[in-house]
């Protein structure tokens, strides 16, 4: 505003006219900002409701002992539940609501004898799926499909999207049938034809299938990113390397791969996060089995503890502690991810200043 005043003074506008200009200027600035916030409001409200409040809430829940037996959604009541009297109605509270237990849940989590195993499972699962499928296989598919007839490429990529759009229950059913015992299993039918004895794949190789099942879905994300990145490489560049007499492999090695650095980084960070937190298919495929916590991952534990109604006693508090670990990892990685994307280049000033 000081700026505006100097404008007026500079121009020698004094008295009533100057004041009027100033007032109008303030009104207009305000209105421009209100318009901007109007555009942002719907997204803002949803993000606050379903991202920020939950983030705070999960921190809070993780320090309570909330479970099915003492369930309440009344946060205020949880906050002062050390009192016996409900201050609002001045009645004695007969049932014992959940209350804050401090860091008991975290302590319990760290002492959980299966926690190290689950943690290691998670790392193993994320690493293998990411390396072999979400990045490795995705890169192979996109390189192959961009080096064949364009329409054929589209066709193959369309097939790879199938796992992503198949209902999870059906997709998992399909895989279960592939590895099932004779006479139903497809692999075992081939084994029979080849004169080999039957293999109990589910018991013997649960991880192979957890990784395959997730990997065949995950590959399509990287595939689409890499494909669009490869397609956007200027044709001149490829022609130049053709003129230089490079072979296909040299072209991939020296022209295409270096240009895929950023998409690669994007896929790695983004997919690490989503693998870290996805448990849908493991839940349906093995439910963490077949042995005790054999294929259980961290996010599945959080879900099972807190929300899975299959176990009659849902422990929201304890489950939240598991989730908090993921939230923290998520926020930290997302910030790293933001840095990696040269944020400052993306916030160039708008070139229109009116309302």
């Amino acid at each position, binding site marked *: 505003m000081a*700026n505006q005043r*100097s*404008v007026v003074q*500079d*121009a020698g*506008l004094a008295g009533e*006219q100057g004041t009027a*200009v100033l007032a*109008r*200027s303030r009104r*207009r600035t305000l209105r421009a900002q209100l318009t901007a916030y109007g555009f942002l409001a719907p997204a803002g409200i949803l993000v606050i409701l379903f991202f920020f409040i939950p983030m705070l809430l999960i921190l809070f829940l993780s320090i309570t002992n909330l479970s099915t037996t003492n369930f309440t959604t009344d946060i205020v009541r949880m906050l002062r539940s050390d009192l016996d009297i409900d201050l609002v109605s001045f009645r004695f509270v007969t049932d014992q609501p959940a209350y804050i237990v401090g860091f008991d849940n975290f302590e319990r989590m760290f002492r959980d004898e299966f926690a190290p195993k689950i943690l290691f499972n998670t790392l193993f699962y994320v690493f293998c799926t990411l390396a072999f499928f979400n990045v490795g296989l995705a890169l192979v598919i996109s390189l192959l499909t961009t080096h064949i007839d364009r329409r054929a490429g589209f066709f193959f990529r369309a097939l790879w999207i199938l796992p992503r759009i198949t209902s999870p229950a059906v997709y998992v059913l399909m895989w279960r049938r592939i590895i099932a015992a004779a006479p139903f299993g497809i692999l075992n039918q081939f084994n029979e034809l080849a004169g080999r004895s039957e293999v109990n794949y589910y018991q013997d190789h649960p991880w192979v299938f957890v990784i395959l099942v997730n990997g065949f879905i995950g590959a399509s994300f990287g595939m689409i990113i890499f494909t669009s990145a490869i397609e956007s490489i200027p044709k001149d560049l490829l022609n130049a390397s053709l003129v230089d007499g490079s072979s296909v492999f040299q072209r991939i090695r020296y022209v295409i791969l270096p240009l895929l650095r950023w998409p690669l980084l994007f896929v790695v960070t983004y997919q690490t996060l989503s693998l870290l937190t996805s448990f849908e298919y493991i839940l349906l495929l093995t439910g963490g089995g077949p042995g005790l916590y054999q294929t259980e991952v961290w996010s599945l534990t959080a879900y099972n503890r807190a929300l899975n109604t299959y176990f009659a006693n849902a422990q929201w508090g304890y489950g939240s502690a598991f989730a908090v670990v993921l939230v923290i990892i998520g926020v930290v990685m997302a910030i790293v991810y933001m840095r990696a994307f040269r944020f400052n280049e993306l916030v160039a*000033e708008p*070139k*229109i*200043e*009116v*309302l």
Partner: protein
Amino acid sequence: MRIALEHLTKKFGHVVGVEDVSLDIRDGEFVAFLGPSGCGKTTTLLMVAGIYRPTAGIIRFGDRVMNQVAPKDRNIGMVFQSYALYPHMTVFGNIAYPLKLKKVPKQEQIARVQAVADKMGIGDLLDRRPGQLSGGQQQRVALGRALVKQPDVLLFDEPLSNLDARLRLVMRAEIKHLQKELGITSIYVTHDQVEAMTMADRIAVIQNGRLQAFDTPDDLYDRPKTLFIAGFVGNPPMNFVDVEIEQANGAYYAVSPALRVEVPPDRGAAAAAHGGRVVMGIRPEDITIDPTGAVRGRVFVVEPLGRDDLLDVELDAHTRLHVLADPKLKVGAGDPVLLKLDTQKVQFFDAATERSLLWQ
């Protein structure tokens, strides 16, 4: 509509876009903002349009202060370099859009659009889309859209720079004719000095966000007030030589290690009054190759321009002159030549302040 800019300043953060520009544009006048790209001329124009808000200073249309008036309430028409046609609308839709926003009745819209389109010679293209038009036709649509609302002010932002050279000539004449016919106050931003010189009533030369000069084309050409203007206006650009003025027998001579020429007494006197080293400016068309010439040089490069050859003549290690020569002379690179300098229109500048010693 009279337009006045008073101490207009625009800063983007700490970067100064436009600084302290003051102009007075008369009603019906055609003014060109001329300057190299990035000099702030488009920023100034966008402030007049209301797209940018001035950091300081006042914009007036007539007597009314426009600083806080929204673009739509300024009643201006604007033509952009990229034409900025709405690609999803037909030509009719594009031209009618300002009327539609003003809620002009449908019948009147049709009549007015048709009238403008006919005037622009695109009356039969009304149901095409911009993508189906040539560059020149798109330009006419953009012009039609700016004119249809009968604006008080017309703004042009390098409207011809995307056209090919031939079409540019045609459109130049048309825009000038149209502006004179309608008498709408116009501001025309360009980096092409030929455009500015041929079209504008007055030219505002802007450099580094500052107003360098605001004059008629003739004044800018013959009476440049700064070294920058002298060098910027005119093509091929003026030659500059560091000289000292000597006075002998009532005559004045400009002397440098490479040359010694007599200059008109009035101009020589003004330069001599300054004393010491001055910068002499002389236009290439005032230099001729002549066996009787007094300045000796060697041709460095020959650039055939068609009607003339542009010679780059080396006098000594520090001095080169651009010379326009008749192609019939068939001068080649490396040839020794004698030059004759017509010093009637010679200019003198202070080497330090770069201000003219002749015109203030």
